[in-house]
């Protein structure tokens, strides 16, 4: 896309996009560190994750201020307008993703480091999958790549399957080891949080698709010559 005639407009949009990337990076870090804290367990690291969440919240507020300012002062149209609106909504969603990471960190002190619960080893793999979805959704935003956004949405089904299988495993474990119920219940919530993070990454991807194409992903042309021959 060509530059705007008014260069300051490009600078504003660039700043907005930069803040979204930064938020996304922090949210990914928060997920990774919360899971590390949980697996070790490491209450100090968990406390840090909770404290760091304030930085994500602060950037969200900044995104809101800048987006409103761009709308008021530059009257963005078409792709620019869609991008500003998407950035506003994406910032809110990424902030929620940060909250889920914080919630995982909050549960770390309840995990007993002495008597390890085996199914906990399944969670980091699920967390990586959720975190990848977040990263790919934000990469798609940075690249204005509608196809990459579609792939993120499609990958959510695998995360949901992962959640279902962990859920069954944890419930079985609780039935067999009733004394661990209170701890394993926390792990159930962690798994649920990761599943929700995947849903939020899906929402981000849908907004990326809208910003890039001007149409809703649900309305997109499904299939095509490529898929029919497969």
């Amino acid at each position, binding site marked *: *896309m060509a530059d705007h005639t008014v260069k300051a407009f490009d600078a504003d949009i660039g700043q907005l996009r930069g803040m979204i990337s930064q938020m996304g990076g922090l949210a990914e870090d928060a997920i990774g560190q919360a899971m590390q804290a949980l697996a070790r367990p490491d209450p100090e690291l968990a406390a840090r994750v909770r404290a760091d969440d304030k930085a994500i919240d602060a950037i969200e507020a900044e995104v809101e201020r800048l987006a409103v300012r761009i709308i008021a002062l530059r009257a963005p149209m078409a792709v620019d*307008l*869609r991008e500003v609106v998407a950035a506003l909504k994406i910032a809110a969603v990424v902030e929620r993703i940060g909250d889920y990471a914080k919630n995982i960190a909050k549960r770390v002190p309840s995990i007993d480091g002495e008597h390890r619960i085996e199914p906990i080893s399944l969670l980091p793999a699920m967390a990586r999958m959720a975190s990848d979805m977040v990263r790919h959704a934000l990469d798609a935003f940075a690249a204005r790549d509608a196809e990459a956004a579609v792939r993120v949405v499609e990958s959510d089904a695998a995360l949901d399957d992962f959640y279902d299988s962990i859920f069954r495993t944890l419930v079985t474990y609780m039935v067999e080891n009733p004394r661990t119920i209170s701890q394993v219940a926390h792990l159930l919530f962690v798994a649920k949080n990761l599943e929700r993070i995947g849903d939020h990454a899906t929402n981000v991807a849908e907004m990326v698709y809208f910003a890039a194409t001007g149409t809703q992903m649900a309305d997109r042309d499904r299939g095509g010559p490529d898929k029919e021959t497969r």
Partner: protein
Amino acid sequence: MTPKISARDVSVFYGAKQAIDHVSIDVDQDNVLAFIGPSGCGKSTFLRTLNRMNDTVASARVSGEILLDGEDIYASGMDVVQLRARVGMVFQKPNPFPKSIYENVAYGPRIHGLATARADLDALVEQSLRRAGLWDEVKDRLTDSGTALSGGQQQRLCIARAIAVDPEVILMDEPCSALDPIATAKIEELIHELKGRYAIVIVTHNMQQAARVSQQTAFFHLGQLVEFGRTGDIFTNPREERTRDYITGRYG
């Protein structure tokens, strides 16, 4: 629904220079249609073909077909004066006659024989000024000169004057570019109220204005009609790259 005006394959030349290049577009009865585009794109030239204002330019030549209710307005038997009563025009700079407010409005109906009795003419002047949203501001000083009004009031007087001859279409060529924001808002509100009663075509450099007042937008560039569609679509998701670059301020 059959269009009020149907332009088919219209080209306009000023001498050897082609100003409009094979444009086809329909003007609906019930909508406001906005023409946007950079200076020199042909939007005003095209607007002026719709009531043959280009006839006054000696070197101008129009080809193609423009139908008003199915009737070719460039046919040899067309009465141009009558045509311009049916397709009225409001210009960029308010241009009231140097006469009283009353006379500005009464002049058209009188020469077109729409009202002869004084009472009929009074009623028509009041109705026109009311429709133009000016009545309450001028009813106590109808004998004052039209040129003594403020710019925004003068423009509404010109709209009242256009309305007075009971036109079917009103063409507006940047009607607010000489007005302050309050007067502009009043004209825009007026356009909204007149919509439906008259087919309205407006040329504007102000894209926000096009977005606010119109239901359909046509983007012109280098004499061509690049894109024509619903205003909501043009300003949120234009199909053509040239349209996108223009409305987002990327036009080189």
